[in-house]
Structure formats: structure tokens, C-alpha cells
């Protein structure tokens, strides 16, 4: 099951709505809500691994700025940025978070669903080709089969 982490600087209506939306998707996702305001000091954060999917939610420019203050902490993760509504975010500074997908809560959540669905499909395909995962390298750097 694909783990997805969800975070916002506030427990805002936008965050709650996004949480509900993700929970309602019929995808094999485990959604982990990181405590708003303290993403990495909670027990839930110990489940985070580099390259994990982290969905950041911002209601407006101010919340984008709060996220930007800690942007170095997010660099290790694949960021999906959800902005509450197009009208509330006037600056492009959110791009400094280097999100892999930017979507607006008020009108293009289906894009998020498609993106996540594609990631789940890729994960499934990888799982269906187990021999790819059972490879290793010997001391000379040659590819070898890892013992079962």
C-alpha cells in the first residue's frame, strides 16, 4: 500500500477537505496526517522516508510563506502542492517548494486523483515484476540475483 503524507501549517478547512477527499479515493493509499504546524516532531513523522509523497496544503499566500520557511526540510520528498483556491494565491513563490504537481482545491482535484492513481499503478507494476527487486550487486559491481 502506498503511503501518502498530508501536511499543512494550520488545521484549516482546506486541509480537512483534502483529507476527506484522499480518504474517499478508491486507491490503495495509506494517508498519514502529520500534525499541522509540527511536521517532523511527531511519532507519525518517523514513518517518513526520503522520496515519499508529501502533500502540502496552503489556503493563501501567507500559508505558502510559512511552508517556504521550512522548504529545506521538504526537499527530500516528492511534493504535491494543493492551493485552496486560485484567487487566494496571487504569487508564484510557491514554485520555490519545487512541487511535482500543483492543484487547486476548488477545481482540479481530479488531476490529483489521476496522478496518485498513476503512482499506485507504477507501484503495482513494480511489485508484479519481483525479479527486479531480487537483484543485487556482487563485490565487483556486477548485477547478481539476491538469494531468496
Amino acid at each position, binding site marked *: 500500500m502506498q503511503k501518502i503524507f498530508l501536511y499543512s501549517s494550520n488545521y484549516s478547512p482546506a486541509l480537512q477537505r483534502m483529507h476527506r477527499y484522499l480518504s474517499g479515493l478508491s486507491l490503495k493509499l495509506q494517508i498519514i496526517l502529520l500534525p499541522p504546524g509540527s511536521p517532523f516532531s511527531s511519532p507519525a*513523522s518517523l514513518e517518513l*522516508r526520503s522520496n515519499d509523497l508529501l502533500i502540502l496544503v496552503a489556503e493563501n499566500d501567507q500559508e505558502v510563506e510559512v511552508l517556504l520557511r521550512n522548504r529545506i526540510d521538504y526537499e527530500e520528498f*516528492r511534493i504535491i502542492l494543493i492551493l485552496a483556491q486560485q484567487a487566494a494565491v496571487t504569487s508564484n513563490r510557491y*514554485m520555490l517548494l*519545487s512541487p511535482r504537481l500543483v492543484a487547486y482545491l476548488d477545481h482540479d482535484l481530479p488531476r490529483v486523483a489521476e*496522478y496518485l492513481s498513476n503512482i499506485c499503478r*507504477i507501484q503495482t507494476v513494480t511489485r508484479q515484476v519481483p525479479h527486479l527487486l531480487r537483484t543485487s550487486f556482487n*563485490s565487483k559491481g556486477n548485477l547478481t540475483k539476491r538469494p531468496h
Partner: protein
Amino acid sequence: MAHILIVDDNTMLCELLSSQLRSADHTVLSALTLQEALQLAQQESFDLILLDVQLPDGNGLDAFQQFAQTSSRPEIIIMTGSGDAEGAKKAIQSGAWSYLEKPNILQNLVSPLTRALEYREEKKRIEQAPVALKREGIIGSSPVINSSLDQVACAAAGGANVLITGETGTGKEVFARAIHENSHRGTKAFVVVDCASLPENLIESTLFGHVKGAFTGADRSATGLIKLADGGTLFLDEVGELPERIQKTFLRVLQERSFRPLGSTREEQSNFRLLAATNRDLSQKVKDGSFRPDLLYRLRSLSLHLPPLRERKEDIRPLCRHFLVRLCERTQVSSKEISDEFFETLMDYEWPGNVRELQQTLEQVFANAIHHPTLFAYHLPAHIRVCTAMQGLTHEEPPPPATAPVSSLHQGRPTDWKSFKAEQERQYLQQVFTYTRGNIKESCRISGLSRARIYQLINLHNLSTQQKVAF
């Protein structure tokens, strides 16, 4: 255009030189005494000083360093009425650009003046260039990583497209960020396009954007990533997965730096720098027909191939420390110690998933040992520890039989028990070290002795360093 100071007590020469230099668009001030000149040099920011030697209040050469050390660090050309070899030598040794005789100064000045000003321009450019490469996230000092960093510096200084290749987890995105951050676009956006994860039907609108009504569901217009990368860097991650249809469109964007949002009739411009990464062999994909050769040529104006972690194992230790410090800071947990055997176990593993696998392993270990002040090999996942255990079994040939300690048993008077036992111990250790080539860990495993006991015996029997090489 340069700001020049002439220091000479000859008013006519000052006027003559000033007039000539002004006609070449330079701004010029002159001083008739050393004191006046030094005052001006401290107040103004001169690029060049023409300095006479014999002045009413002193020798120009003696005051050379005072001029040279003013805040603008000007270039200095010495002028003299009566040239002498010693004076010329002193001037050049002090750092003067040239030593010119006044009678021919108007004819001879042009060339050294031009060179001195060109040198100064170049010096300014070098000073503006970053003195140290920003390399956050790129940890290690192995020769292969240093070579990659040199390439990062070259790539950052220029504006060419860069194709970064390497196995999965080698840090392609980290290096791409380093190129971006060290370039003049560093303060602008670093826009990532996830070519592998974006579904094909989303790639086009995500890259190029769309206008309202461009397709079903497009009830508002949206800016694409190419436009958002204007002034910054566009990073195509896993570019090998870019669908063939998009490859063709994107090639045109690369050629013209312009694009058309979906549903729009208007071309838009974007000034972005392109970086791309892949773990695929794109040349092979070109042969297979699944990747456009013209796009590949465009992408790899510069190439950077990242080494796998197994080729830079000396970086494992600093990488671990870096990740651990970051984890402790991030989770606000006090710092942890790492045992030597933890590192030794990491070194035995081949890391097929490279730096990312190492990082994820440490994250897992950290989570499991959150309350432990020291990380031991025992905290590592079983598959990594198994690797170490398996490596210990690779010596299939049995150890050579121990040399029978016959000499003291059969020849002459036997020694006392204590000396005999010590001699056997010493011989045994020599044999073990020869077999393991001085590897202490392996010696512990074979002998069943603890590391501490082995070291105790080495000291006790005064074994030479040659016998305990490669710890």
C-alpha cells in the same frame, strides 16, 4: 571607462595625459604631491594610478604599497624621468603593471594601460563568481564525487542543457539542484517535471498550461510548468519516460524557447535553463526507436554521470553522519553515537539502491532506535546484516594447518610453561593475521576472541604493525 589618478609634479604632463585619457572616455584626476595623491586615493575609487617616482614630498616607489592597499586596490603604472634598472626592478616587484620613462610616455602608455584595465575587468568578474560551490546534500570527498563536483561547477557557470545519468538513488535531483543553485538563476524557481509519475494525458497541460475551455473540465485557464520556470531552471526528472508524442512538441520548445498553451492561439516565451535526468540508457532507447535522437542531442549538451555508492564507499561514513544529524534536528531528538561495527556492516553491503537506500535505511534505523543513544549493527535491517555474515563465509579454503610447535618440545631443555604458552599465543596470532591479512574483525570471527582481547594480545606480544595491517 576607468577612473584614473595621475600623480606627477609636472603640471603640463598632467594636463597632457589627462586630455588624452579623457578622449578615451576615462575620468581623470591629478595630484602634484604624494600627500595630495594619497588623500585622493583614499577618498575616491580609482581603477588605475599613474605614479611618478620623484615627487616634491617623497619617492613614489616608497609609497607604492599605500596606494596599492587603498580600498579600490588600483592597478599602478610607474612613470619616471630618469629610468634606472634598480628602480624598474623595485616597481615590478612591488606589483606595478609597468615602468615607463616619461619622455616617451604618450606613445608607450597605450598598451600597458589597456592590458592593465582588461586585467582589472577580468579580476572583477572572477571576484563576482562564487568562491565556493554550494553543495548542500552532496556529501563526501571521494575522488569520484570530487570529479562530479568539478562538473557541477562547470555546468553552473554556463547555461547549456545538462543530462544527468546514474543508477536510481544516486542523487540526480540533488546534483541538478546544486547546478541550479550555483548558477545565476539560483534565486529563481527550480521547477521539477516528474515525467514518470505524470499520466500521459496530464503531461501536456501540466507542461504547457491551458486556456479556459481547452478541454472538458478546463473551466479556468492554468499556467504550465514551462512558463513557471521562466528565469529559472526546468528539471525533467526521468526524461526517458517522456511520451513520444510530447518529445516532439518539447523539442520545438527547446529550439525556440516558446510554446503554446493548450487551446491558445498565442505563442508564449519562457527563458528557462533545462536540466534532465534519467537512469535509462537513452542511446539504447534511441536505437529502439522509443526516444528521439534530436531530443537526446539537445538534452546532453553537457553530460554528468553519477557514480553508484558501491564505487564511493569511503563516503558512507560522512553520509551517515549527515543524515543522522539531519534526522536528529528534524525530529528534535538529541544526537546519537554510531558504533564502529555499524559502519563496518554498512561497508560490507553493496547498496543497489545507492544513497537513497542508505538514507532510507538510516531513517528506518532511527525510527526503530529513537530512544537508543548509540546505533549498533543490530539495529540495521536483517538483509544488510546477513550480507556481512555471508561475506564472512566467502573464504572457502580451510586455514593452513597450524605449525606444530615441535621445536621447544623435542630439542634441548623445555622452557617453562608460561613462556611456552606465550610463544604459542604469538604464533597463533601471527597465523590468524596472515590469513585475514590483518583484518581485526575477521580475526575476531575466526579466533572467537573479542576485539578488546585481540588488541590486548597484540600489545602483550608486541606484534609489529605490519602484522596488523588494514584494520
